[in-house]
């Protein structure tokens, strides 16, 4: 009943008809173009922004759990043996105790009292690629007595007034330190959240040095690296039972930040946001669809005579319906394709302006295409049906 040549012919005719009414077709399509462009543009931009944030977060902590163990009044922080127990937990490939404090540096007669001191373990450097030049710490540096440090560019600039600082010496909280390395600029999300403009810079030292300077026995902060093949939540559960053992189930003795589950939560939230935005944008699509329906109704009444003639020549109602439906679909699909192009362009420009990732979302393109086809079918159905039900002789007689 319906063969390919009918579809082909309907397709060609609809293009003819669209071309014959260029301005009207363009205005009609505009609704669909705007609708699809806003869906595609918004979805792509939100996706790009989410990917950027998640990318930065995962630079910071994919496969990592951050344990913060203040401990109890009786037992503060984590001792060396506690650390060994954490290290031996199932699902853990390694741990890096960290410590931090504020301090003062002096060089000659100048004193700089707004220095951030971070204490890291050797293992830390295996998981965090932070060295720009010089060397990282080795096991011989870790006994607490070796006064070596890695400084950041701010420290070099503010204290030494030169980036050329390897081998230079200065006093940190009264102790003589030698610079063995320079840190890369910190591009992680956390650093972006803090304003460091009034600080003198950061000095990284072996973590035990920090404990000594601050007069503490135990570390309270540990980065835990998850072993290959383990879920972050599994490792987290295992750690919790070990820590509960260490602190005898005392409340609020420790906390664990699981970056991965944080990211999962965030993805869920942004997915919801994307769906909501797409929902709002699709209102424009509905408006565009009504425009298409209007144009199709006009087209049917303008071509009543043509429909009558086709029926007189033997066109079955279903073919007439098909012809107008295809026309409506072609119209909205052309609008949809232009809209996809425009939406991607908007997202691309937006990505450059907002300095976020631009990633073509194929699901958004599929969505835009599907949506515009659906709009064509839904809003073309009624006019097409109406055309197919015209009485041939009344249609032929009309002017």
């Amino acid at each position, binding site marked *: 009943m319906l*063969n390919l*040549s*009918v579809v082909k*012919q309907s397709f060609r005719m609809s293009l*003819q*008809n669209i071309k*014959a009414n260029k301005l009207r077709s363009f205005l009609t399509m505009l609704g669909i173009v705007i609708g699809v462009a806003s869906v595609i543009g918004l979805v792509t931009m939100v996706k790009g922004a989410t990917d950027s944030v998640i990318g930065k977060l995962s630079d910071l902590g994919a496969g990592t759990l951050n344990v913060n163990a203040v401990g109890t009044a009786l037992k503060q922080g984590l001792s060396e043996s506690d650390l060994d127990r954490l290290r031996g937990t199932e699902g853990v490939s390694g741990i890096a105790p960290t410590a931090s404090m504020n301090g003062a540096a002096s060089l000659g007669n100048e004193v700089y009292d707004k220095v951030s001191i971070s204490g890291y373990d050797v293992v830390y450097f295996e998981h965090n690629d932070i060295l720009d030049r010089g060397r990282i710490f080795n096991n011989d540096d870790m006994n607490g007595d070796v006064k070596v440090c890695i400084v950041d560019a701010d420290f070099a600039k503010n204290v030494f007034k030169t980036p050329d600082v390897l081998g230079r010496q200065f006093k940190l909280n009264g102790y003589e330190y030698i610079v063995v390395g320079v840190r890369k600029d910190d591009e992680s999300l956390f650093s972006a959240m803090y304003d460091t403009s009034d600080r003198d810079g950061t000095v990284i030292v072996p973590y035990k040095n920090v404990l000594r300077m601050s007069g503490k026995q135990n570390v309270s902060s540990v980065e835990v690296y998850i072993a290959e093949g383990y879920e972050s939540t599994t490792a987290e559960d295992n750690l919790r039972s070990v820590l509960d053992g260490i602190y005898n189930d005392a409340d609020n003795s420790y906390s664990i930040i699981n970056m991965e589950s944080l990211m999962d939560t965030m993805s869920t939230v942004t997915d919801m946001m994307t769906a909501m935005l797409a929902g709002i944008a699709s209102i424009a699509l509905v408006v565009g669809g009504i425009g298409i329906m209007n144009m199709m109704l006009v087209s049917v009444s303008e071509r009543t*005579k*043509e429909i009558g*003639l*086709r*029926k*007189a*020549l*033997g*066109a*079955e*109602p*279903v*073919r007439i319906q098909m012809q107008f439906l295809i026309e409506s679909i072609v119209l909205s699909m052309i609008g949809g394709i232009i809209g996809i192009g425009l939406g991607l362009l908007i997202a691309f420009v937006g990505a450059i302006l907002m300095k976020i990732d631009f990633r073509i979302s194929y699901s958004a393109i599929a969505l835009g295409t599907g949506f515009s086809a659906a709009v064509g079918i839904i809003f073309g159905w009624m006019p097409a049906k109406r055309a197919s039900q015209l009485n*041939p*002789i009344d249609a*032929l007689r009309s002017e």
Partner: protein
Amino acid sequence: MSDNEILRMKGIIKDYVLGSGTSRVLKGIDLTVDRGEFLAILGPSGSGKSTLMNIIGCLDVPTEGEYYLSGKKIADQDEASLAQIRNKEVGFIFQQFQLLQRQTAFENVELPLIYANMPEKQRRERVREMLEKVQLGDKMEYFPNQLSGGQQQRVAIARALAANPTILLADEPTGALDQKTGAQIIELFHQLNEEGRTIIMITHDRHIAEHASRIVRILDGELSEGDLTDA
């Protein structure tokens, strides 16, 4: 009923509802047409010729009466089979050509063949053959507004013949043409009739009607055979 019979009407009545009352345009038409006949229906303007023609061509339905075409009772057919009948049994030539302006002569003639589901290759051949038959082989890619009235009417004839219908129905085929072109069209009809095609032609012109093998007269919705003296 003779074996040769192709069309039979009995007591066909057509009423139009107009405002308060109804107006009876066809007042009980009885008509039988045999295969191979060239019938002219002659009558003055407003006598109901086109109304009758539309019923014969299954474009319109009578208010009352029985109508059989090629043995099928038309009142019993649904929309889809009516479409089939219009496609296969009837080739309609309209008073005003009724060509699609945005399609070429070729595409216009192709239409009924598309609706007949003829395969593309065969279809192209058939269209070419039909247009050559009406001497328009060199104008196939012309649009209707690039053709003269007579040429347009010949495209319409080619289209009516394309699907090889049982009956050719022509409503005032020469009405919009000058005498010379009109004569050419009638000549073509003669030729088609000699090839065995059944033709029903409507006209208000006695001279045109005289070319037919049989004439019926319609006056104020009533049909009478022969006798041309006071037409």
